[in-house]
Every structure is written in C-alpha cells, then in structure tokens.
C-alpha cells in the first residue's frame, strides 16, 4: 500500500502544481440529473438549470438556506412605502465579481447598474441582450412582472427603487427567485465589445460563493470557491456536478463515494437508504400539491354537498401508500405545511363511503351517475402516477354507483382543455415558486376561474376571493396569515378540490457531508456545506 500512497501523493502534488483547482483540497461531488440549458437563470425554467447557475450568482434578496424565509443578500436592507407601491433597496458595498473567468477582470464592485441591467435585459426589448440566447424569460413573464413593474430607478450607485403599479406583498419573494439573479453589466459590455454576447449565458461571472471553472455537456460542471465572497469563502474548495441521469447509478456512486450528495432517489431505494450506514437520508415535504378538481360549472358538481360527498368517497390513505410509496403526505389544505399561514386546525374529510352515498342521495343525485375523470399523461414532482390514482378513484367511486370514465390527452393539450373547463373532474397539481401563500391561493381565485384560466374547479367564491385579494396587498405577515387561515376554512367547507398529497423530497447525502440542508424549493445549495 505505501507505493500506492506515494503515487497518490505525487499525483496530488503534480495537480497542485499544474491545474487550477488544488485537489489535495476539499472537493464535494454532487450527482445531478442532467445538463443545464445554459447558465442564465432568467432564461430557464428547470431546477437542473437553476442548480447549475446558483453557485455563481446572488439575488438582491434570497431564501435562507433550507427555508422559504426571505433574507438580505446583495441588498442589505429595504423599505416599503406606505402605499405599498415602492420598494427601495440599499445595496451592499464592496461586493466583488469573479475575476479571471473567460478573460474578464472586473474593474469595479457590484452596484445599481448591475441591478438595472439584470432586470432590463428581461423587460426592455431595446436592451442589447434582450434577444440573446432566445430571450424567452418565462418566469419574469409568468410571475406577472411586466404588469406589476412601473419602473426600476437608480437613486444612486447603492440605492435602487422598484416602483409598482399596485401594492403587491409577494413581490419581495419574487425577487428572491432565480430569474431575479444579478449579473455583471461590466462583463456583459465586455462580451458585447468582444462580439460574443452569447457567452454571457455560457460562461457565467457572478458575485456568488463559487467561481465557474468548466462545463462539459452531459458530463461535468466544475466550480471553485471564490475567496473574496462577501459572506466569507465557502468551506469546501471545489464543487463538482457529476451529471448522472440514472437514479440507480447515482445511488451506486453515492455508496462508493464517487459523489457526496445526490438528487432524486428511486422511491424503491428509500427503504435501503434508511439503513445504509454510509448514507444520511434527509427529507422534507415538497413545496407542492396534487389535487383532483371538481368543475363547478358542470352539474352535479355545482352542489357543495356533492363535492363534499366525493371527498368522503375516496380512500386517500390507500393512494398515499400505493402510489407515493412513503414519499408522500396526505394533503388537507391547498397549500403545503411548509408554507407559512398553513392552517393546522382544518380537518380533512374522513374516508366514509356510506356517508358519501347518503349525502349524494340527499343532494338528489341519481345513480348510476356517469362522470369523467381526467388524469395527466406525465409524471410530475407532486404526482408519480396520475393514471394509477385515477384507477383507484374509479374503483372507489364504482362502489357508490358512479361510473368514472378515465380521460387523458397529450400534456400540452391536457392542460389547455382543462383550463378551458372541458372536464367534469380532473387531476393536476402545483409546485410553489417563491414560498408565498399567494403563489398557491391564486389557483382558486375568481380571476383564474375564467375560461382558459388556471382555476380548474372554475370555482369562484366571493368571500374566499376577497380574503386572498386583500392578503396580497398587505405587507404585514401576521395580518396576512389570519386572512389565509380563514380562506383555508372556506376552501375545505366548499370542497372545490379533493386534495391528494404533497410529495416528500428525499435527499441522500454521505455521512461525511456536514450542514447540508434540504430546500423546500427542491434547490441544491452548497455554500455553508462542509466535508468531514
């Protein structure tokens, strides 16, 4: 063995001499799932792409690691005007951009120009970068930013003011999302001069805890710790993403020590991981919900009693056990328990087919009753097998004399037809974007109940809608919480959905990984993580 050790030492010594990262140092390998589309979060929509850019970048405000709390980042502090229409950010001074990446050496620290550039690229067609790399900016548009923003003004080099068209409490949480990443204007100008603007999205330069080193498509992404990071250098020296698409292979790599953290284990492997001495299995309920919506525009679902009876008719525990296989938690409210304002006092409908039958009869529903039951043709983070769930529901309903016809379409078509309200009942779900309750409740609001809108129950309850509309405009969290708690009571009573489940996210890490935190957003973050 000594001979081998000498070789290893020699190789390590040579590496320190020649290569950029020093491998005698701490290297953390993360087994990720796939290649990023590029390294600019504003252009992307997948967790894989966001994870790949996150080590390099910061936002004005950020989600505290492992939580949905919004905390200061590039902005030191902020104030909201009394009418709620202006948010003024004080920017942090002395924040450095990465130096030496792609031949770029910054000559100045981060300032207001970078903030303006990052948002104007997505917002203003006249920005020279607006059309670069396709320029879709899905999240900027989906979060309604063009309608919400009146202007973004530079007050001075370290003060930026966001002027809104209406008071909007979730705005701050929006700005912590990946699309609101702050990029270097100086680097962008440098690339324009060089005639290679597309490199802004391929070779990232940011203020984040890790500096980009290299990316080989479908193989590996490498980062090294940025020594001048404004919150202090990372505890690990090198961060490597080993792109490994197969979950079984990922687990094998984790066991062998070829990676330290892995994404998305096979549900079938979870039990083994729990007893594996090399593995620390972390878990957290996902920021999502799977639901079964009853279209209130189609009788008999216009009657509250019928919707309640359907809630009583389905054996939810069996679905959780069979379909989620331990990676799911029965849903009671339309928001997951990890989101603030979750009302723990609300009780779910118990499985009681006899009572359901009686309620249906009392509501004047004649059996046999023919309904349709839509299931989406794809696996989603909140629903591993919509077809199987539909079949289980179908069987439960048949006991009540209800014939549910199973219906499905290609994913795009499915979504479109459901939003048009063609279904009687159908499954879908939602994954939270920013941890704000409004990001879930809007799905049940009156504006979304229009034809083509995202309220798939087409349920418009004036009391409920008044509560969530008011909550959206108040800044005070306690007050908002009270309103959302009331809204959840109305929701459960009115039963526009059968709430199916929140999936549980599992993150296996090796025992030597210290301080890794599971993100409710399904993010993977390595600043603050150490190796024993």
């Amino acid at each position: 063995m000594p001979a081998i050790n000498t070789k290893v030492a020699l190789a390590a010594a040579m590496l320190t001499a020649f290569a950029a990262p020093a491998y005698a140092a701490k290297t953390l390998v993360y087994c990720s799932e796939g290649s990023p589309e590029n390294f600019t979060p504003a252009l992307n929509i997948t967790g894989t792409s966001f994870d790949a850019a996150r080590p390099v970048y910061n936002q004005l405000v950020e989600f505290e690691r492992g939580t949905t709390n919004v905390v200061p980042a590039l902005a030191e502090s902020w104030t909201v005007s009394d009418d709620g229409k202006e948010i003024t950010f004080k920017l942090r001074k002395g924040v450095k951009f990465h130096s030496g990446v792609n031949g770029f050496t910054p000559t100045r620290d981060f300032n207001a120009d970078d903030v303006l550039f990052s948002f104007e690229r997505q917002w203003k067609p006249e920005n020279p970068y607006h059309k670069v790399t396709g320029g879709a900016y899905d999240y900027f548009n989906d979060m309604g930013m063009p309608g919400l923003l009146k202007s973004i003004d530079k007050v001075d080099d370290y003060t930026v003011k966001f002027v809104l068209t209406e008071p909007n409490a979730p705005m701050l949480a929006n700005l912590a999302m990946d699309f609101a990443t702050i990029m270097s204007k100086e680097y962008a100008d440098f690339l324009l001069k060089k005639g290679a603007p597309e490199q802004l999205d391929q070779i990232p330069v940011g203020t984040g805890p890790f500096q980009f080193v290299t990316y080989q498509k479908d193989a590996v992404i490498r980062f090294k710790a940025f020594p001048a990071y404004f919150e202090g250098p990372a505890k690990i020296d090198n961060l490597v993403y080993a792109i490994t698409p197969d979950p079984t292979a990922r687990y094998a790599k984790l066991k062998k020590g070829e990676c330290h953290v892995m994404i998305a284990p096979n549900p079938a492997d979870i039990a083994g991981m729990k007893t594996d001495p090399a593995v620390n299995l972390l878990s957290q309920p996902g920021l999502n919900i799977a639901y079964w919506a009853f279209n209130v525009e189609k009788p008999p679902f216009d009657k509250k009693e019928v919707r309640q009876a359907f809630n009583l008719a389905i054996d939810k525990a069996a679905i959780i056990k069979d379909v989620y296989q331990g990676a799911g938690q029965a849903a009671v409210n339309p928001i997951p328990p990890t989101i603030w304002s979750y009302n723990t006092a609300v009780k779910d409908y118990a499985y009681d087919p006899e009572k359901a039958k009686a309620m249906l009869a009392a509501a004047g529903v004649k059996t046999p009753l023919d309904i349709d039951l839509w299931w989406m043709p794809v696996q989603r983070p909140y629903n591993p097998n919509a077809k199987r769930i539909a079949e289980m529901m179908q069987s439960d309903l048949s006991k009540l004399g209800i014939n549910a016809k199973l219906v499905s379409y290609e994913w795009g078509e499915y979504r479109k037809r459901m939003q048009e309200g063609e279904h009687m009942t159908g499954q879908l779900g939602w994954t939270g974007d920013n941890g704000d309750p409004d990001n879930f409740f809007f799905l049940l609001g009156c504006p979304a109940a229009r034809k083509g809108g995202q309220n798939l129950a087409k349920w418009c309850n004036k009391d409920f809608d008044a509560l969530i509309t008011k909550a959206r405009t108040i800044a005070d969290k306690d007050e908002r919480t009270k309103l959302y708690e009331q809204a959840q009571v109305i929701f459960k009573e009115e039963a526009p959905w059968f709430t199916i489940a929140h999936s549980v996210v599992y993150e296996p890490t090796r025992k030597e990984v210290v301080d890794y935190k599971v993100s409710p957003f399904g993010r993977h973050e390595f600043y603050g993580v150490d190796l024993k």
Partner: protein
Amino acid sequence: MLKLFLRRVALTLPTFVALMFVTFVAVRLVPGDPIEVRTGERGISPERLAQFRHELGLDRPIWQQFLDYANGLLHGDFGVSIVTKTPVLNEFLILFPATLELAFCALVFAIVLGIPAGVLAAVKRGSIFDHTVMTAALAGYSMPIFWWGLLLIMFMSEYLGLTPVSGRMDLINYYFEPVTGFMLIDSLLSDQEGAFGAAVAHLILPSIVLGTIPLAVIARMTRSSMLEVLGEDYVRTARAKGLSPLRVVGLHALRNALIPVVTVIGLQTGTLLAGAVLTETIFAWPGVGKWLIESISRRDYPALQGGIMLISGIVILVNLIVDLLYVAINPRIRHGG
C-alpha cells in the same frame, strides 16, 4: 474497383434523401411542440405561444420548413438547437468522440472474445464448450441492456468494488480540459499519473454492456461460418496433406469463414449506436445517444433531425466501407460484379 466504388456511393444518395424526409416527418409526428413541452402547470398564453412559434419558424407551412431544412443540410448547416441555442453540429462534435470511444472499445471486446469463442465452438462441435458458448450467446443476445448494465454496476462496482460506477473519469482526483474528446488520449496528454488507468477503468463496464449483443452475434456467426467451411473440400485436402490442425483451422478455414463475419461486424455499427442510447444513460456517458433521447423528450427538432442524419450518415458510411472491404477479401465478388 473504382466503378464499383462509384456505384455503391451513388446508391447511398437516395438513402440519404429518404432519410432526410423520414426524420423530418417522424419528429413532427410526436405530439406536442418544443414550446408546449417546456411549459409547466401554468400553461402559456396564446399570444406568447404564437410569438415563440413564429420565432422558431414553426408557424410556416410544413413544406417550406422542409425546404429550408433540406437547403441548410446541403450547405452543411444542421441548424441550431432549440434548447441550448448552440449549433447542432457543434454539440454533436463535442459528444460524438465519447460515443465513438465507447463503441470502439465495445467492438474490440466483442471481436476479441467472439471470434475465438466461435472458432472453438465450431471445432469442438457438440462438446460441452460448444453448448455453453451457444447458450451464453443466446442469453447475451436477448439480454435487456438496462438490466444488464445495472446488474454489472451492482456486482462489479458495489459488491466487488473493482470498477467505478459511471462517468468517464475520476472527478475527485483528476482534472484536465478535453483536447481530442477521447478520454484515453486526453488522459495520456494530461500527464497526470494514474489518469489513463482511471479512463480505462471507467470504460470496462460500459464496453462489456454495449459489446454483449455484438459479441453474441459474432460468436454465433463465426461458429456457423466455420462449420460450413470446415466441411469444404479444400479443408479436407489441407488435412489430407498432413497440415497441423492449427494451420488448417487458423489459416485455411478461418480466413474464408471470416468473410460473412466481417459483414456482420459492419452491421453491428447500427446495433452499437442504438445500444449506446441505453448504455450512455446508465453509465452517465456523455455521448450522442443520451443527447438524442433528451432531444426527443424536449421536442428539439433541429437537434433530433441533425443528430439522426449525422448518425445515419455514419452507419451508411461504415456499411459502404464494409462492402468495399468485403470485395477486397473476397475476389469472387470483385470479378462477378
């Protein structure tokens, strides 16, 4: 010979045109377009959908899209990936060396084991060895690649700890930039001690998995071809002359028996590239197979079309070379045709 060469080349042209047409139509028959597929629960507004379709040229008549595509191909332009916005040819050239390296090693594995196994099985016809080889070949031929790959990872990497699980390089201990894209060469160029060994170690399992079906086919083909040749008059004559069995089998019989085997090896190129799709996914091998699978799920039309054209082009080219090789080792074809 030149005439024959030109005729064969001319015959490949209609194949290319048909291929171009079929790939273009086939990728569009898959339901869902590239924009709708990337949209989540939120859906997309009709205005934005129309705008993106316009930007990608998907709103133009289908024949016009085809003509543009064909025109681009004639000028060597394979288009730009919808997902990454980089030229399809660039992506292909970055990923193809990995596939080529793997396919080459798998083929070497299949030939080195397959031909001797087939010859021995033929010579010892009816023996236990023969039956074992043929049963193993049948099993190998019907082996589901995904299952076989995972089984090998569990046994060789996890249980015995002999080989790395997946990837092309030990990422914790080595780091060098790719020069040629072939890890075996790049690791030597990197001058880092142990890097070449790590590259070889990473190639073992995927090569076995990808080489299993070709190995089975080659072994069976060699055996049956050998059996046929061993019954020929000239072999009997060679034996009667008193030549050593090794000389009879190795020189007289094998040389003639190899002709159909070479054709079969050529035909395996297609199998290798098809098998690469699964092998690359299991072993996180950054090649074109995995890239194509992802392009299908993302409805990345240009990447899919370009990738299929490039790969088919290679298969056609290899078959052409095999045809010509066949002529070179079998004079009868040369004279007859």
